[in-house]
């Protein structure tokens, strides 16, 4: 069986198969939307590949361990790591290290009051659900991903834990 037949078979068996097919057709009928769909799918594929091949620098490893221990950390908290890694003395350098951890899907971004903070994926997803007034069983994973900067695949992993 070819890939197209496989897709038809999967859609037939899926609870929301008809609705997914309508969504796909909506994008595929229109050339502009078709490009958007293909670009999004390609980017999603890259995101999944990246999430499977994570390598950390020594500073990133230390910062990641720190977030896992505390749940949530602010820039002020992260200055405690400056004894081991001088980069953490400077907010701009800290920001580069932390944003790299965010890109790798290991920590999420949240706001504590007006302050930016970094959190474990679970804390970040729970924070986003509170902000969006949603519950894990009825929510928009894409919006959570945008709010926390966590990759969609990581958001789905956390929702799996919460549902």
């Amino acid at each position, binding site marked *: 069986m070819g890939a197209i037949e496989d897709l038809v078979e999967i859609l037939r068996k899926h609870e929301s198969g008809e609705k997914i097919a309508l969504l796909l057709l909506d994008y595929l009928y229109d050339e502009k939307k078709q490009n958007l769909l293909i670009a999004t799918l390609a980017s999603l594929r890259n995101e999944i590949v990246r999430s499977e091949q994570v390598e950390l620098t020594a500073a990133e490893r230390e910062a990641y361990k720190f977030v896992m221990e505390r*749940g949530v950390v602010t820039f002020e908290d992260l200055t405690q790591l400056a004894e081991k890694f001088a980069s953490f003395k400077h907010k701009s350098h800290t920001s580069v290290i932390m944003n790299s951890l965010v890109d790798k899907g290991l920590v999420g971004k949240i706001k504590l009051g007006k302050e930016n903070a970094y959190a474990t994926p679970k*804390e970040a997803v729970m924070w986003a659900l509170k902000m969006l007034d949603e519950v894990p069983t009825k929510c928009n994973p894409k919006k959570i991903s945008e709010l926390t900067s966590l990759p969609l695949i990581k958001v789905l992993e956390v929702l799996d834990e919460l549902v």
Partner: protein
Amino acid sequence: MGIRITIDGEGEIIIKRRKEKGRTELEDIKPKHRPELTEPAPRLEPEAKSLIFLRNIIDQMEIRAESVFRPNQEDYETAYALSGNEVIDMLHKFTSREVIKDASPMHIYTVTENKVKHILEERGESPRIIIDVHTHPYGIAELSDEDRKTIKKVAEVFKEKTQAKIYFGVHAVSDESFGKRREPEAINNRIRWRSITREHEVAFFDENGKPVKVKIWEQ
């Protein structure tokens, strides 16, 4: 992944735990949600004295209670329900005007008939246990005099329309102060924990206002 994402009639995204065919409710729960029991899994008989909560339901209770709080605004009361057969495994969020008529920092007015309708729609059938919960922002986890006057009447409405045993929960939430999370612990009729922003304490009572013991089924 143990979840299945579907789209409902309104285009809303619904996330459900996958069910395996031919298995009972307790067996449906993914292994990570099940305790390492040396004895048979707990079974809540009609006379049983404890309510048993899946651990992830407590996360959902926290999300629900804190969702209504907004920066620079007073913290309002809210209401939600919990349900299950042998264990409490589902949280029902009430937001529509049909269920919550009015809410303030000190009170909340809800329509019980519409709560029942919502619960039955979400579960697809009558559960054996329903817990009607409301929050007390900045307050204590105790039934107020007003609560004690109304719970019997509310329980009657639930019992008319379902086969469930009815319990009540009072979910006290502190004001905001950032700190380290503390995992939930069950003590007598209470579950206590701390989120990164607030202290939580939920107390459970039967329809006569008597405390009901609770247990957490750790993942």
